[in-house]
């Protein structure tokens, strides 16, 4: 299936993905971004718990190739603990470089980035804490 080999970083992340799952807590504090589809070969979900100080928990779920999984895991790791504004300038290319993602796979990384963009959009539409009553 693959004429290329995986970088050590991808293999490590694939084997032991960090931050897998769904962020939990007060639904008022949770935002979720999704991008891609099974048809497209990658479906990525990022879920964040956002408190006034910033992202207190970041989790991912992914259907996709090892690069997609590794990249989604890296994104979740990196944004946890960051102020929500940091997401805006998030550098997906740095992750692509770190994971040595081959050119043919950059489209998949954009799906990961789109999930992040989805989170941002959700946050802008509905800053966490504004709908606690909905619980």
């Amino acid at each position: 299936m693959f004429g290329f080999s995986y970088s050590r970083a991808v293999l490590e992340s694939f084997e032991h993905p960090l931050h897998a799952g769904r962020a939990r807590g007060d639904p008022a504090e949770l935002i979720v971004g999704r991008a891609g589809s099974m048809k497209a070969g990658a479906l990525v979900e990022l879920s964040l718990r956002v408190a006034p100080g910033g992202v207190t928990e970041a989790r991912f779920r992914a259907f996709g190739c090892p690069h997609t999984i590794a990249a989604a895991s890296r994104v979740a790791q990196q944004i946890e603990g960051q102020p929500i504004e940091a997401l805006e300038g998030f550098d997906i290319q740095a992750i692509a470089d770190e994971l040595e993602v081959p050119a043919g796979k950059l489209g998949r990384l954009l799906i990961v980035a789109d999930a992040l963009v989805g989170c941002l959009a959700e946050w802008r539409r509905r800053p966490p804490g504004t709908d606690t009553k909905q619980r």
Partner: protein
Amino acid sequence: MRRPVYLDYAATTPIDPRVAQTMLACLMPDGTHGNPASTAHETGRAARDVVEKARAEVAALIGAVAGDIVWTSGATESDNLAILGAARQARSGHVVTGRTEHKAVLDTCRQLEREGFAVTWLMPDRHGLHGPEQLRDALRADTRLVSIMHVNNETGVIQDIAAMADICRERGILFHTDAAQSAGKLPLDVDALGVDLMSLSAHKVYGPKGAGALYVRRAARRRLEPLMFGGGQELGLRAGTLATHQIAGMGTAFALAREELAAEHERVLELRERLWSGIEPLGAVYLNGHPERRVASILNISFAAVEGESLLLSLRGLAVSTGSACNTEVAEPSYVLRALGRDDVLAESSIRFSLGRFTTADDIDFATACVRAGVEKLRALAPEGRAPDKSLKIR
């Protein structure tokens, strides 16, 4: 246990040590190193004798006369010789083949289209089978050749060759079958099957890569144009120095296949059932190909809600094939599974397990554990959880 556990026998088999022994007898300093065409001296004649013994061994597995076996460099060449040879000799006309044939047949028929021949591409049913009636309907007054494989290399499905060849014989149309995947796995008899041309490969039967044969029924000999010219070897149908050690190895491989066919069938079938009963409980796994009309050695499964490339990486303790093209960075779903009606996602998340002579129960248990762990982990990671995506419906 040797790692990775090799379950890719349909791609190629390891050489049987007894085959290696035969080959060694040619390769060693005192071996049969002559040119089989150099019948002017003892060294050449010894090589010729080795070649003729092997010819009889290969013929015996398929119920043919030794003189009707033409040596080639593999089933790819055999397919090309049969198809291009028969069509070009006729100069123009129509050829029938199927959509799930090996690329050696498909690409060759596409070449015929470029050369001005008409080609009908039969669509199989959802199990991968062609009906004889479907073939009859496809025939034309100018049909020169029908080429339908005996056993499919991805799914293991067995076509009813005898019925189809029968229809062609009535009309004097040449019938070719690619038997690369059935030799050594099913009893074969060119007369019972009624075929004029049959492609064989050594490296699917524990023989060497780069050795093959084309069975050419005597009456069909004059209806083939060679692919390669020069020297007049092999009834003028295939030029080139005969590779004594390769041919000797193919001979031994086919002789062994004949001896062990029945016992191996039982053993391998049992192992395959063991594998399937270990994997099936995962749920949302789909068998590709016909449930019964399949060779014992192949199990092709699509795993819903699991991405193909990640699945393969999870299974790196196993040497298996997937339903994707191997030679490009961008995966391409299997055209065979697509023809059976699988959508791209299920086609890409398919794994072909193919078992063989050296597969043990331990190998199978290890494989089962790998698959269960890998699939469960990936499904747990996926957004939809364990439930299969509703969009992934089987036709």
